[in-house]
């Protein structure tokens, strides 16, 4: 389902892989078209396009997976609720952070209330106005845009309500992106897929293109382009956590999506140790073969380090990754995240703030580390992810949290404003867009 792979799980996962040797042959199983035909490469009109490259941009991931009871999605408290403890009520939730609801115009009363007895409402991304607000924030704070997460298992034909939900959220987002001139891109998350689901992705992608006229430079001038083609991101290839699909499946899919006419550019979401094929990564050079067919590499860094270990863990990886990508003429986008917390999701009090935010020190350390190492762009995980507590959008501060029975919520540090992480990400945006005055020292607000 989610991108919950953390270092904690790794020993077990590794153990599994090392016991069962997998052999893969990359995408070479597909016989080449015979005779090879000269196919004309796809050319797109980029007139009016505001984002023709991911370079010099700071973009975030956008989950948009929440639903509120009473919204039109009819999905209850989807992703706020936690099935392992009985739903969404004091003492049970999937989220650690609580959105700062001050600016939302459409709110739904939740089963939670504040210490003063007043109800703690929530938003639903199914509502146009809520997504609009998020994109307004992006513009206000200088975040270039977002990658709209599309979980393949959530949009399968067997899951019409999920598909309806994510299509509606995407529709809201496309509209807001155009309105606020924010970059937008679709990102498929393969987690939980079978090999057949991976293949189904192509069908969904074709549907999306026609449904929304995604590549229409007039209609969607902010749909991001890269290397002269609309960009699509495929996330979750090469992880060694026993996924039901293989690198070969992903390779076949991407080859088809690109097609001989190279219809799109692709950002590949890979595990952190993708280059050395170690630790969280399947030990198969097929991953490198596939990577070279793509345009951008984005390794998943959530949970791989904390503030103390960042320099030691990330220094060598960043430098090596960037060098590898340069040598192979690929773009490279490191991931940064503000912190990590999933005490409620895991029903584990020790998992609150398991990677502390440290008032932005941790986030800025990664921003500076990436910039100084030579990265050109950033992927921020995530805009609105509060199940794992990586969200940067406005969340309630520690002193303004709803009551939570015998559990608790984690808040933005009291000394900060609720928009601090939006602001800090915006500062990163300025630095990556080329403004001066930034360094390893966290900017003062």
């Amino acid at each position, binding site marked *: 389902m989610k991108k919950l792979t953390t270092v904690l799980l790794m020993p077990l996962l590794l153990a599994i892989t090392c016991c069962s040797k997998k052999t893969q042959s990359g995408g070479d199983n597909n016989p080449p078209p015979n005779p090879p035909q000269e196919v004309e490469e796809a050319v797109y009109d980029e007139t009016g396009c505001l984002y023709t490259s991911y370079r010099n941009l700071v973009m975030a991931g956008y989950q948009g997976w929440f639903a509120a009871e009473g919204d039109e999605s009819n999905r209850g408290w989807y992703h706020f609720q936690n099935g392992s403890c009985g739903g969404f009520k004091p003492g049970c939730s999937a989220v650690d952070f609580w959105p700062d609801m001050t600016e939302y115009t459409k709110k739904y009363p939740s089963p939670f209330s504040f210490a003063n007895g007043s109800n703690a409402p929530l938003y639903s991304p199914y509502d146009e106005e809520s997504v609009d607000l998020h994109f307004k924030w992006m513009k206000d704070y200088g975040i270039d845009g977002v990658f709209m997460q599309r979980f393949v298992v959530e949009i399968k034909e067997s899951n019409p309500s999920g598909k309806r939900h994510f299509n509606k959220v995407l529709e809201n987002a496309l509209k807001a992106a155009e309105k606020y001139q924010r970059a937008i891109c679709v990102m498929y998350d393969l987690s939980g897929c079978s090999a057949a689901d991976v293949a189904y992705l192509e069908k969904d992608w074709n549907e999306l293109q026609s449904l929304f006229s995604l590549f229409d430079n007039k209609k969607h001038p902010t749909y991001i382009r890269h290397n002269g083609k609309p960009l699509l991101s495929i996330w979750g290839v090469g992880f060694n956590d026993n996924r039901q699909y293989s690198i070969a499946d992903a390779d076949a899919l991407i080859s088809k999506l690109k097609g001989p006419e190279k219809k799109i550019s692709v950002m590949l979401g890979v595990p952190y140790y993708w280059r050395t094929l170690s630790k969280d990564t399947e030990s198969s050079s097929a991953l490198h073969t596939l990577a070279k067919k793509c345009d951008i590499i984005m390794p998943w860094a959530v949970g791989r380090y904390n503030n103390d270990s960042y320099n*030691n863990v990330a*220094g060598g990886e960043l*430098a090596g990754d960037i060098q590898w990508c340069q040598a192979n003429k690929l773009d490279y986008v490191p991931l940064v995240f503000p912190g990590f917390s999933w005490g409620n999701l895991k029903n584990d009090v020790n998992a609150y703030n398991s990677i502390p935010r440290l008032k932005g020190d941790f986030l800025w350390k990664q921003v500076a580390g990436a910039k100084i190492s030579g990265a050109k762009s950033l992927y921020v995980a995530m805009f609105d992810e509060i199940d794992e507590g990586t969200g940067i959008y406005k969340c309630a501060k520690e002193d303004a949290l709803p009551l939570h029975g015998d559990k608790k919520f984690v808040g933005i540090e009291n000394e900060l404003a609720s928009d601090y992480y939006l602001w800090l990400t915006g500062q990163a945006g300025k630095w990556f867009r080329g403004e001066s005055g930034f360094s390893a020292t966290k900017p003062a607000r």
Partner: protein
Amino acid sequence: MNKIISILFIGLLAFTSCKKDNYDAPNAGLSGRFVDAETGELVQQDIIRGTQIEIFEHGYGTGQLQYLIVKNDGTYENSLLFANTYTIKPVRGNFIAVEPQDINIQGKTTLDFTVTPYIRLKDVSINKNGNKVVASFKLEQKVINNIKKIGLYAHSDSRVGEPMRLVAAEQELNAVSDPNHTYTLEIDLDANSSVLKAGTSYYFRAGALIDIGDAKLNYAPAVKL
């Protein structure tokens, strides 16, 4: 392993030992250099416990790796290889990790690696000042990691370095270096008179170690004093 495997293995060994070795001697070789991508200079190394080159000969199922060592000056050579295809992978180095390369080695084959050293020592001076040898230098680091330590090493052999020294003056940094700062280290010759004999020349070399896994030190060339 299980005993039965041991038995079989002993048996196999016995068999092999009965056979006459009628294979040709190794007749191919591999040599090359580690070159700084920016300066074009050779990247200084350690002769022992330094950067290694893993070489894996294709076509043999044992998974056994061979290791080549790199000389102090950043060159390497092995003239005792069988002609074949090999995967060559520098490991545990003092430069940003480079990818393994597959190469067909026939006769004398050369393979250079263009690398970015983790740290460059700049404006290096090593001088004798009274009874002290003083080294000063600036540090330019190419990765964001801390610098673990800096050191000045002395040995009678020109291949002096952290692992090969009679005397060392080291300073723990455990911080990102300041590119404008001049770092200074000194060795007191009198205090080390039993190993650094008066009237004898010794080699001195300054180095710095990045805090990345089992990375190795970066050096400036050795100086004879």
